[in-house]
């Protein structure tokens, strides 16, 4: 057993499913609680993928697609790493990481997601992963001998300032008054500083996040975090006002530009930050390219057909815009998403 696993066992209680916990009751999921509970219960008996495909077919690709793990190669893993997947949810990257490395600790605040992931790990015979239900903002400093080699923060940093529960559908739709202390930046910095502290001297961070200046945002495509147009682009105060008006809460899901992401990581203590542009998004990347490489020969990455195989005007227009911004203008600053590899 490695030192991180030993530390988790010594610090946290464990439930009957083998999931460690710190007492948090928080919730974040694309599914609402009832749906997520029924899914977690249904997969306990096995047949995880089939059950998911039957009940929530739209999630099968989100969780199982081999495309999702393409970014992990940027970490240049040796196979002997001890890793933490911060905000692991249903394990889209936890399992691929476990298959490539020595040990993975998956941390999430949502019990139902972890129960689903536990069933997946069991079914797929992965025995080098441990799950912890904990508040990402209240994680301890790991002891010196349990410092980690890889920290994965995939689509999570922008949610760190959201200290309330999130059932994504109602989070988007129903205005509900929420109050927050401190700025989103303060929460994100504190999270990254703690994470940085927990890395071994040669440890690396894998951060995947939307670009604040994603070219689609200029066309009024809703911000994927607030579901409101233009909120990522506007000055933070203006975005706050719009969010207060429409959703009765401030705009907390801060994303950053390429420079902003680098600065954020440097302020958290990372000595080296390598930036990559990611198309058409970081979840299902078709193209990832180092910031310093030319965009010569760029071809659109947004699929021309939707999931039903039909070509839509919106998709064709988005492809044309992609061709214009990146094939012709080479406007790297407007890339849809960013992957940053931070070295301690």
């Amino acid at each position, binding site marked *: 057993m490695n030192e991180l696993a030993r530390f988790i066992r010594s610090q946290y209680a464990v439930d009957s499913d083998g999931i460690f916990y710190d007492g948090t009751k928080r919730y974040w999921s694309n599914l609402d609680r009832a749906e997520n509970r029924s899914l977690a219960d249904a997969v306990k008996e096995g047949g995880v993928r089939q059950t998911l495909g039957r009940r929530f077919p739209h999630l099968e690709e989100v969780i199982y697609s081999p*495309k999702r793990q393409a970014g992990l*190669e940027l970490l240049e893993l040796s196979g002997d790493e001890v890793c933490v997947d911060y905000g692991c949810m249903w394990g889209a990257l936890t399992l691929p990481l476990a298959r490539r490395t020595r040990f993975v600790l998956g941390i999430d605040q949502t019990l139902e997601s972890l129960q689903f992931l536990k069933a997946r790990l069991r079914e797929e015979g992965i025995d080098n992963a441990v799950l912890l239900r904990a508040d990402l903002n209240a994680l301890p400093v790991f002891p010196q001998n349990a410092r980690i080699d890889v920290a994965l923060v995939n689509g999570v940093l922008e949610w760190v300032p959201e200290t309330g529960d999130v059932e994504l559908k109602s989070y988007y739709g129903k205005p509900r008054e929420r109050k927050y202390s401190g700025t989103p930046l303060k929460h994100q910095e504190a999270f990254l500083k703690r994470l940085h502290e927990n890395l071994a001297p040669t440890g690396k961070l894998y951060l995947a996040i939307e670009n604040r200046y994603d070219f689609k945002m200029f066309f009024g495509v809703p911000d994927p975090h607030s579901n409101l147009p233009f909120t990522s682009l506007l000055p933070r105060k203006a975005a706050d006002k719009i969010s207060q008006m429409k959703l009765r809460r401030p705009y907390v899901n801060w994303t950053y530009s390429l420079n902003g992401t680098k600065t954020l990581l440097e302020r958290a203590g990372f000595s080296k930050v390598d930036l990559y542009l990611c198309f058409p998004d970081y979840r299902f990347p078709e193209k990832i390219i180092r910031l310093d490489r030319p965009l010569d020969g760029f071809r659109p990455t947004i699929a021309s057909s939707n999931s039903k195989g039909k070509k839509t005007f919106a998709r064709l227009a988005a492809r044309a815009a992609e061709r214009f911004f990146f094939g012709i203008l080479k406007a790297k600053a407007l890339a849809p998403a960013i992957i940053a590899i931070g070295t301690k």
Partner: protein
Amino acid sequence: MIQELLRNGSHFSAHATYLAEVHGQKKIVKAAADPDGIENLKREFRGLEWYTRRRNPTQGNPCRIVAEKREYLRTEIDYVEGRIPDCRSGLVRSAADLRSLISHYCEIWPKGNRVPLHGDFSLGNAVFNEKSIYIIDWEHFAEDAVPGGFDVVYLLLETLCLGMRMRSKPSPEEIKILADLLAEANTRGHLAPEVVRSPLGFLVGYMKANPGFWGKQMPKFPVFKLSGNELAYIDTLLNARLSREKK
């Protein structure tokens, strides 16, 4: 260090392809984490081993397995500089490249009824440089799997189908070029008798009967664009030409 993700799980296989720089040298890195993808990469390793030996018996395999776990495989392949033709240009515009590539096939491949299969012998998988032609992407490789000339027919049919774009029938000029190029391979003795009898029909029938070489995405291959009747019609013309030349 990885420079770029070039391809992610598309192009008929379940692995990702990257451009990397290792000790100042350009490399192609491929990674797979599912059984199909791993099988593809292992086939490619064997394919490049065979190909390199045929090109130059003293040269080592340019493909190396750099990480292997129960459900994960990563390979690193020496990068070859050169021009990769556009496989969508069609038979007419690509005739010269096709002729060179078929000539390269005849130099490398043995003759016979059972020869190695590349499986995606396409213009898009050929690097042309000043010195020579280099075939890449050996993910469907199988030793002694197909009758001689199989990959040549695949190359020509794929170029024809991709070049037709929205058209449903090839032009007389395209059929003439197809026949000319096929006749060149035949003259050099590289087409097995069953391939000569019905080049396109045999190819399509063989692929449908042996999906294991190509994987789940095979039905999407461009070579399946033409109808059975169309294939039979073109085959009649090709067979007449090939038989005539043999006499």
